[in-house]
């Protein structure tokens, strides 16, 4: 039995991969001009990630509110934030990928995005993931 563990162990290591972050923005996009944000809650989100994003935007000196997508027009803000979260099960549920997008209010166009991917062995808390992605988003 001992001899048969190694292929499985190697396969597990190969499949876990490495943590990575990435970010990009539209040509000429300038995130410093956006001072007020509205974070739209993803309907399937049970972790209230929109509140965590809004809190962390506020802690960066920006104004941010959050909630469901308003039925009657967007609040008067400079930009809208949307996100996409992916979760996996490995002993406990953990967030494996978080993508955050900044959209223009009028056109709805995405002007910047950032994301973080973390396998099970390098997992972070939701707050840690949000902080990592926002840092990547604003440092570009």
């Amino acid at each position: 039995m001992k001899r048969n563990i190694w292929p499985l162990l190697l396969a597990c290591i190969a499949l876990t991969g490495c943590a990575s972050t990435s970010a990009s923005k539209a040509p000429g996009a300038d995130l410093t001009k956006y001072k007020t944000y509205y974070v739209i809650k993803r309907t399937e989100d049970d972790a209230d990630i929109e509140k965590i994003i809004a809190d962390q935007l506020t802690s960066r000196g920006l104004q941010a509110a959050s909630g469901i997508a308003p039925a009657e027009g967007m609040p008067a803000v400079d930009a809208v934030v949307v996100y996409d979260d992916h979760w996996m099960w490995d002993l406990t549920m953990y967030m494996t990928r978080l993508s955050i997008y900044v959209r223009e209010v009028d056109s709805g166009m995405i002007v910047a995005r950032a994301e973080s991917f973390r396998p099970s062995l390098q997992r972070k808390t939701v707050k840690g993931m949000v902080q990592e992605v926002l840092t990547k988003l604003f440092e570009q």
Partner: protein
Amino acid sequence: MSVSRVLVVLGAALALSGCATPIKSSAIVAVPAAQVHGSGSDVSLLISGGQRTSPVHWSRISDDAFASALKTSIEKSQLFAQARVGGEARYQLNAYLANIDSPDVESGTAMRLEVGYALTDAQTQKKLWSASIVGIHITTRRDALAVTDRARLALEGAARETIQKMIEQVSALNLP
């Protein structure tokens, strides 16, 4: 199950999954079937948001591949007299590869690509048009056996769709 059987199953699974390959620009060139109103001026292209393809993940589109495909598509459709990547021209067309997603569909492998396009008059710096264009393409086992190939073909189709829609919408501006 014996070790040899497990290895055979694993080998078959790996063969069917395959390695992701970068998307070539020639695969995403789009030419609308309808008549295009062509501008007599040149356009300069600026692309961002492209990603490098990792063999262990899905195929992705690089900035260079998308720029080359956009240039060829514009010239073939005669939307502008000439298209160049970077440099100066009467018009400036920016494209931002904003989001690639693989929505769940029952009928096959789907890829969704969202590209933000913005056209500016370089002389006046006035934004003439902008749009967030989404392309969705679905492939099945008839298109390719390996799932990585189906995903690549689906992303190529989605990219062609966004370029085609962009040409149609810019054509409708009737630019001089």
